[in-house]
């Protein structure tokens, strides 16, 4: 065949052979894979850059003041004396409010949505409301806190107190708690529930003794991650009046005075220090960030370990 003979040159034979035996050089493949890898490296590189920069910048504070001194002194306009005691107290107290409010309400709401609710219009409305609330920027919750909680508590330090801040933060994280808890409940197979109903248990008995124990690791992981997020949340607190500047506090101030009086949180302290022009405050800000990151990353690590340990595939 003349036509076939014309095509079968040495060059084409070699090319076909190379293609079949995989000896072509897939340069495009290499470049593409390289680019993907670079994308990942840049993203992770930023993390390394940020962590190392903050650590280096905070060194003078640790060397001159020590950790103990820095976390146990109050705010001050004098960089040599300023510390984060008030911020830490505020953040921890805010977390206590958030935990004690959002866990019962959030998990209960998730149980209703996953276990009790019939598939009707009301349920769909509830689900849509929760998902949309989770997407609302946190700063908008600050407005809600400002017009509801701050206005309602005008008698207590003009509404700028830890209770108003804690309630506002609770609203920010409530939808996230509901969504993660609902996901954990959903991952428990139907058969587990049917086994409970089969021996005559009521709905609540099934939920309590069959569903919740299996969903618990997932629910706790979600809650822990949410708390880490709430710990670093700043914007809504600024709107409901966490002190952005320093405030005096008598050495004799009791816990009640601290809760009902002016307050700040650790991220709010960082925000106000970062805005100060003096160079000394750069090191202080970095030191406060190291403390904040240590807390947030520790909480996250606990959640990730918990998840890897108890994750169950059905």
């Amino acid at each position, binding site marked *: 065949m003349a036509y076939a003979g014309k095509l079968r040159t040495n060059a084409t034979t070699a090319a076909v052979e190379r293609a079949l035996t995989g000896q072509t050089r897939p340069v495009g493949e290499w470049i593409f894979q390289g680019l993907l890898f670079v994308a990942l490296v840049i993203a992770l590189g930023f993390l390394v850059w940020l962590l190392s920069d903050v650590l280096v910048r905070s060194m003078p504070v640790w060397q001159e003041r020590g950790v103990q001194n820095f976390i146990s002194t109050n705010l001050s306009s004098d960089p040599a004396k300023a510390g984060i005691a008030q911020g830490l107290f505020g953040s921890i107290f805010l977390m206590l409010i958030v935990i004690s409010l959002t866990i019962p309400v959030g998990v209960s709401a998730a149980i209703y949505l996953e276990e009790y609710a019939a598939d009707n219009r009301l349920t769909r409305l509830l689900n849509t409301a929760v998902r949309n609330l989770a*997407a609302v*920027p946190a700063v*908008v919750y600050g407005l809600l806190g400002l017009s509801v909680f701050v206005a309602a508590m005008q008698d207590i330090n003009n509404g700028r107190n830890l209770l108003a801040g804690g309630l506002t933060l609770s609203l920010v994280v409530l939808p996230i708690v509901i969504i993660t808890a609902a996901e954990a409940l959903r991952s428990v197979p139907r058969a587990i529930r049917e086994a409970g109903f089969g021996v005559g248990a009521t709905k609540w008995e099934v939920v309590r003794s069959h569903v919740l124990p299996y969903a618990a690791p997932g629910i706790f992981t979600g809650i822990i991650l949410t708390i880490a997020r709430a710990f670093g949340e700043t914007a809504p607190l600024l709107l409901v009046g966490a002190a952005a500047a320093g405030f005096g506090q008598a050495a004799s101030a009791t816990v009640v005075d601290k809760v009902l009086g002016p307050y700040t949180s650790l991220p709010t302290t960082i925000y106000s220090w970062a805005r100060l022009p003096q160079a000394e405050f750069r090191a202080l800000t970095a030191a406060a960030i190291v403390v904040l990151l240590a807390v947030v990353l520790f909480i996250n690590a606990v959640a990730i370990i918990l998840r890897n340990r108890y994750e169950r595939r059905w």
Partner: protein
Amino acid sequence: MTTPRETSALQIDDLRGSAARRRRELIIRTFFFLAAGTAVLISALIVITLIGEAIAFISKVDISSLFSGAWQPRAGNYDMLSIIAGTFVVATIAMVVATPLGLGAAIFLAEYASPRVRRTIKPILEVLAAIPSVVLGFFTLTVLSPTVVDAICPGSTPLFNMAGAGIAVGILITPLVASIAEDAMYAVPSALREASYGLGARKRVTSLRIVFPAAVSGIVAALIVGFSRAVGETMIVALAAGGVGGAVFNLNPCLPGQTMTAAMTALAVGSDQAGGGIAYASLFFVGLLLFVMTLLLNLISERFVRRIRSAY
């Protein structure tokens, strides 16, 4: 003599359990329902307070000050367009950074990485996502703006600029975009990939022409969610974009600017905001705009997610 009740067949009432047990079930059910109802209550409260104060703002404010070319609440200038422009400049830069980084990382993790690499890298990405934004704001101010932005922008760049804030917001949303997009690509059935390999396609062609189109709904949703988060991001912009006192209309990312979120914090910090007045009401008007924007973006992204769910 026995009563007829005892001899008759099992009645439905006998299976119902005791009245006390049923009452307890009802109480528990009501409690759970009320907890779920708080979500709707909060939504309603947000909408009511925002709309109420926004109407008060519109009725009190001098309409010409809404188009005065600058957002300076203390001077009586409430030009919405300048802070909306700032919001879109920052969010656009964020998307320019987060789209290649996030999607690149997602394709790498879903298609190229071995299970072991995935298990190591995903938690690290979660750590990046967990960094509070106020920290990134400080990082932008002290590191990104003096180095990266200064190198990109021509001439002498002010320390406070929208480009630095936009890059940092992009870094912040990269893990979010990567994680949603990766979930979408991971959910593509492997039969599609195998069919592609069977036809002789290489990994790059399979990733880009088979998996990417099949997962495109989820990828679009990832980008919309990322954009929505960028629009709502507050602390990075409040610290690093400048314009604390106000901002003039400006689309140049190398100059200072203000976003809607930063305008809200700037107004709230250091002013007696609970005292009422037009500036106080303007907070809520901006908040309402922000709420409506993120709500729309969220509804659109949900529609895309639902499409990918129905496909497989």
